[in-house]
């Protein structure tokens, strides 16, 4: 019961604040002022860094079990994306059996939580030995710039990461020493998991509409009016998180432009610009599709996760999205068409070894195990795509199509990564801007100019 007694404290607060307010205010204000002045006089923030670099020798041969046994009883602390838990549950016991003196302690975080906290954790006095970052300036760039992660070139050459089809997937983890550009330079991270963007389609709806499975953006574009005329939602889109539409934009933009140029722009090459005819056309296409109702109604009010759930329930003919959505779809009812012309796609969050870790060689052995063919098969069995694709076998048609799409785009070299890697605020700049274009509130020209001007604040150029 909410009696008058329950209300009493509120009244007391009221009495105190209204009656003794001036005296308190002056006291508090004075206290704040004095402390602030005192602090401003102190050292600049960041002068006392939390973590200190440990002695980490370069390796010239594969780490042996004896070397790791010499470490004595140690605990390897890991920070991982929640999505890695099924994989870690398989991998950690195998690792602990191979190296019995090492205990692996994994902390899982949701992706949003991970990228918001991992940099500070890596900078703390008890930084995790091994952790996942995220490609781009916001996380990996900050880690490299502050010297918080160990260079992995020696590991890559000893363990042969640079051989085979998976080699190109290391590029986004390569940085210049000052952390100013990525795509080339020193290797700082490794991801065993790939991502590829393509067109998911509802097979029974395609048959009803008399359409073929789409193999390109052109195929998709031709199918959209037919699907719309039949009263279907042609493309299921959930864009309230502001990124899903930028992925479709990226796929359209890559049809008329060299993916290498797009990659260079994302990497921060000052000679590149976003204000290209291809990008203007792509933005206009997005606006046209939106005004034709090809994305259905209210896509800006729908989350991406809700959209994939609806698509899985049979709403919508197509879903343009990444392989990470495949786990939600019934493999018998849905298919996946590759976009060989390029677009969004890269690797999942790379793993980094802390530069302050005393157990770096144990971490190296863990990374080796993460990239093994056995782990690759586990990754595929968990509904995701491994970087190492030699010798893995897909189960079911959808998995096979997705794996084929990955092999095709990696061989064509057309994956461009993600636009939001390029500056820390690109996700909201481009995502919000594209929403405006699609709603017909700004022109495609103004959109590309706005994106370019936000970009050049970071990277210079026109």
């Amino acid at each position: 019961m909410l009696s008058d007694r329950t209300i009493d404290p509120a009244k007391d607060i009221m009495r105190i604040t209204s009656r003794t307010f001036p005296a308190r205010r002056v006291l508090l204000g004075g206290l704040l002022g004095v402390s602030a002045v005192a602090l401003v006089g102190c050292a600049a923030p960041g002068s006392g860094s939390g973590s200190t670099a440990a002695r980490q020798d370069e390796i010239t041969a594969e780490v042996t079990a004896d070397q790791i046994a010499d470490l004595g009883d140690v605990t390897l602390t890991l920070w991982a994306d929640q999505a890695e838990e099924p994989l870690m549950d398989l991998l950690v016991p195998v690792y602990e059996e191979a190296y019995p003196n090492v205990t692996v302690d994994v902390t899982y975080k949701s992706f949003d939580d991970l990228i918001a906290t991992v940099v500070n954790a890596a900078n703390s006095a008890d930084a995790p030995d091994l952790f996942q970052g995220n490609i781009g300036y916001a996380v990996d760039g900050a880690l490299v710039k502050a010297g918080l992660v160990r260079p992995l070139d020696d590991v890559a050459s000893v363990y042969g990461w640079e051989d085979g089809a998976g080699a190109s997937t290391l590029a986004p983890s390569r940085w210049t020493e000052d952390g100013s550009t990525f795509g080339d330079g020193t290797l700082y991270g490794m991801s065993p998991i790939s991502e590829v963007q393509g067109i998911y389609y509802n097979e029974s709806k395609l048959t009803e509409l008399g359409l073929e499975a789409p193999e390109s953006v052109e195929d998709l574009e031709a199918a959209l009016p037919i699907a719309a005329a039949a009263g279907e939602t042609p493309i299921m889109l959930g864009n309230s998180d502001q990124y899903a539409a930028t992925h479709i934009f990226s796929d359209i933009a890559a049809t008329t432009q060299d993916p290498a140029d797009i990659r260079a722009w994302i990497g921060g090459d000052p000679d590149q610009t976003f204000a290209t005819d291809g990008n203007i056309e792509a933005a206009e296409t997005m606006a046209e599709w939106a005004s034709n109702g090809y994305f259905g109604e209210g896509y800006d009010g729908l989350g991406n996760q809700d959209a994939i759930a609806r698509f899985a329930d049979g709403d919508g003919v197509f879903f343009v999205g990444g392989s990470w959505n495949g786990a939600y779809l019934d493999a018998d009812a849905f298919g996946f068409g590759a976009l060989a012309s390029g677009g969004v796609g890269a690797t999942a969050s790379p793993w980094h070894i802390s530069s302050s870790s005393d157990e770096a060689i144990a971490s190296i052995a863990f990374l080796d195990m993460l990239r093994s063919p056995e782990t690759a098969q586990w990754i595929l069995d968990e509904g995701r795509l491994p970087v190492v694709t030699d010798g893995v076998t897909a189960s079911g048609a959808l998995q096979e199509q997705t794996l084929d799409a990955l092999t095709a785009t990696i061989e064509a070299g057309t994956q461009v990564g993600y636009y939001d890697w390029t500056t820390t605020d690109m996700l909201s700049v481009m995502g919000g801007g594209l929403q405006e274009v699609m709603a017909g509130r700004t022109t495609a020209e103004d959109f590309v100019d706005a994106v370019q001007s936000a970009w050049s604040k970071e990277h210079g150029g026109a």
Partner: protein
Amino acid sequence: MAVTSATRAVVAGPSGRRRRSPVAGYSWSSLLYVAPALLFFAVFVIYPICISVQTSFYEYDGLTLATPVGAANYVAVFTDPSLREALLHSLVLLVFYAALPVLIGLVLAGALSRIRIYGLTFFRAALFIPQVLSSVVVAVAWRGLLAADGPVNDTLRAVGLGSVATSWLGDFDTALPAVGAIGTWVQYGLCMVLFLGGIVGIDRSLYEAARLDGAGAVREFRAITLPALRPQISIALILCITFALRNFDIIWNTTRGGPGTSTAVPSVYIYQDAFQNRALGQASALAVVLTLLILVIVGLVQLALRERSEIRPRSLRRSGGLR
């Protein structure tokens, strides 16, 4: 007699605790009692505030050594057009997060206190639930309710208003009012309970007297209930305005400031600067400005309500009033 006892109830609360002079009552031993709380307050509130103020004069990524930049971050705060737009959104939200909840709370409290409703306790508790729920839960629930094919639109279509139905949170024109409506829903319960508590403290005989003089329900509300609730209205406004101006979680979990920037408020930019852009100096400067703005507006509200206390009924003022 009736008037003075009512006054005492409002002023001192039903517990009728002895009133003390505000300044003369301080002593070192009393300070000892508040020391633990004060310590926590200093460590977890005052110290972080000071660090924020200090950081706001630097360019700082949270990792490498910060560079002093003087007032540059503050200049950026006051010259950035997107922040001006965000501030404008905040002012619109004040209507939804503060003005409307207080109005609805007054109407509900007036009604609930006047009409004898069977199961009143249940209704009071039920109407207070939005205040108890975690704001993330609230945001997720409303995202579903306001979706293009959600229950809100279904209801509109069922009563023949299908042309009004839209994706409330996804439409540039409706997103801000829609986010505002969620805030109204969250806050009115708090206002109502505050006001109900105040009404309980009003002497019933005042209403009887008014009724004998032939006052109607509205007159009664304006002449007795409203003046007696002034302190509660002040508290409700302060809490709601603070909630409105620093509101982040509801907006972030429904629209992320979108579509476009149509629901972006200062706190969204603070979060983005601090945790996505790693521009801690810029974020701190904006946070400091926002804090000062909240203090100023809350101060104005207090001032306004204090001035109006001069026109309060003579009898109440003579007996000490509500200072």
